[in-house]
């Protein structure tokens, strides 16, 4: 079998910035790919974390609807260590601002009232996700590692992944928590 650590990632209600910060490790990406095998991620073509599970699961973004809930539950059930990547996953972040207004009111504004919209209607379809209150990841599933920041720095992400790949538990403090 493969001795590389397997990693799967996905994004929930987030902006992709945390995944971009992962790419910001620049050439260390090649080093990382020596240590880990990327399985299903938004930048690879495998669609879901392997049935038989992966070592590390990474989720960016908050839980905001039925679809993100499903993705989060599936990732949790298929990974050994789950990382909440970034403020949205850790605390709810900017997406949680929606909780201050109801989804129904926000939908009305976007699809009916906006000045550029002509003859609008609120989209409704069996294939569209159902809105929920926006929640940080650990209100839905258990989280093993919290990596805050908006986004967390590339150094912090690289440190966490390379420590895990080496079989060590990363300790987040000091500069790894300074994402500015």
């Amino acid at each position, binding site marked *: 079998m493969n001795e590389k650590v397997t990693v799967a990632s996905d994004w929930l209600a987030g902006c992709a910035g945390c995944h971009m910060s992962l790419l910001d490790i*620049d050439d260390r990406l090649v080093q990382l790919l020596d240590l880990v095998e990327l399985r299903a991620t*938004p930048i690879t073509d495998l669609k879901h974390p392997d049935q038989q599970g992966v070592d590390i699961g990474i989720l960016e973004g*908050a839980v905001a609807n039925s679809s993100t809930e499903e993705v989060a539950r599936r990732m949790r059930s298929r990974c050994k260590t789950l990382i909440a990547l970034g403020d949205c996953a850790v605390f709810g972040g900017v997406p949680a601002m929606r909780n201050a207004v109801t*989804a129904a009111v926000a939908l009305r504004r976007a699809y009916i009232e906006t000045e550029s919209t002509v003859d609008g209607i609120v989209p409704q379809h069996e294939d569209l996700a159902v809105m929920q209150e926006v929640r940080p990841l650990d209100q839905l599933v258990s989280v093993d590692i919290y990596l805050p920041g908006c986004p967390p720095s590339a150094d912090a992400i690289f440190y966490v992944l390379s420590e895990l790949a080496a079989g060590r538990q990363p300790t987040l403090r000091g500069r790894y928590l300074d994402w500015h």
Partner: protein
Amino acid sequence: MGSKVIIEPVTRIEGHAKVVVHLGDDQQVERAFFHVNEFRGFEKFCEGRMYFEMPQITPRICGICPVSHHLVSVKACDQILGVTPTRPARLLRELMHMGQTIQSHSMHFFELAGPDLLLGFDADPAIRNVAGLVAANPELVHKAIQLRRFGQSLIATLGDRRIHPTFAVPGGVNQALDSADRDTLLAEIDTMIGYVLEALAIIKDWADRHQELLGEFASFSTGYLGMVGQQNSLELYDGPLRHVGPDREELHRFDGSDYLEYIGEHVEPWTYLKFPFFRDTGWPDGVYRVGPLGRLNAADKIATPLAQVEYEIYQQICGGRTVEGTLYYHYARLIEDLYAVERAREILEDPEVLSKDLLINAKITNLEGVGVLEAPRGTLFHHYWIDENGKLERVNLIVATGNNNYAMSRAVEEVAKRYLDGTNIREGALNRIEAAIRAYDPCLSCSTHAFGQMPLELILLDPDGTEVRRIHRF
């Protein structure tokens, strides 16, 4: 009996969506729908915030082009203050925008679309990704990473951070460029130009070998919209908008602040992504495309020398008419990438670029402001209405990818009809449907102001709409 196939999620694009293909009794594709499946509600939840918070809140719409939201937002705020920032401030904002364009276009070409082009649409999905590219051509991947890093370092030099920088403020910018930093950035330009030219050589070679595919793959006629500068040259930061038809004839030319007079948005019940169109021709006749292909069609020239040479070669493809094939987006994107690096050099060499005359202080003079610029994926509009204290009363956003919604839906349908039927559902055919979407480099977080993911599901339905089959590729 028809059937139902699902691709979930669409990968190597940004956001959540699903494609549903309807088959008729004869097993042929009747229609295909491109469902965008997320909604966030930025327009609503920003109400009540202060207008000057928007340049920090709205970048969280999208972490791939946060600088576009940061800058367009601050342009709307400039209008609220009634000021035109100083020339040095505008130069530095544009420089940051070039960094955004370089990082976004380079990443798309190599990391997102590259695996299809360089490894093949039918390559094993387990290796059809950036790791597969590393294995196949490590040197090329190193160059790709350096290009993206260079774009990000332009952003970080000015705004202290690569993602979600803090730099532009209403009335100007908050930090001068240091001469040592300027020199460091300038010293890299020649190498970066070399890397983009290598990428262009790859796409030109690919285009030569796939002429038939380029001609037949989701090629259709629409209008094209893009910002232009002097003599209709390609412009990404500031200028009027130009809308052209298939023969490059000018249909509209207008100040982006007047967008509401020209552009409306249509809503379909089956997607959270709206469909912009020109109001005078109406929905759906007034649809148009934006982004690299749209901009190069709407422009007549490029003001930097190397990009102009490439633009002239590119123009020969369609003998001076507009270029319509969806896959040409990849080629157009790299010509813009080259322009952005060259333009960054021009700005860095400008005698005023180190100036400290960077901020005009002003009070609220207008209760409304519109910002427009060309984000990597197309024309981006932010429109704010405030009360006299600066509190937001209403917000309207038309985001780059939304402008291409009709085109993406159409491309999906054409490719489904061309490559798929009920008896032949190969992985490679499904990947081609994804590739049609990927060419537009959609950013669905942006376009629905919906955070996050984009599963593309491909479902085959029988004629009564019953799901018969979903194909999970993994």
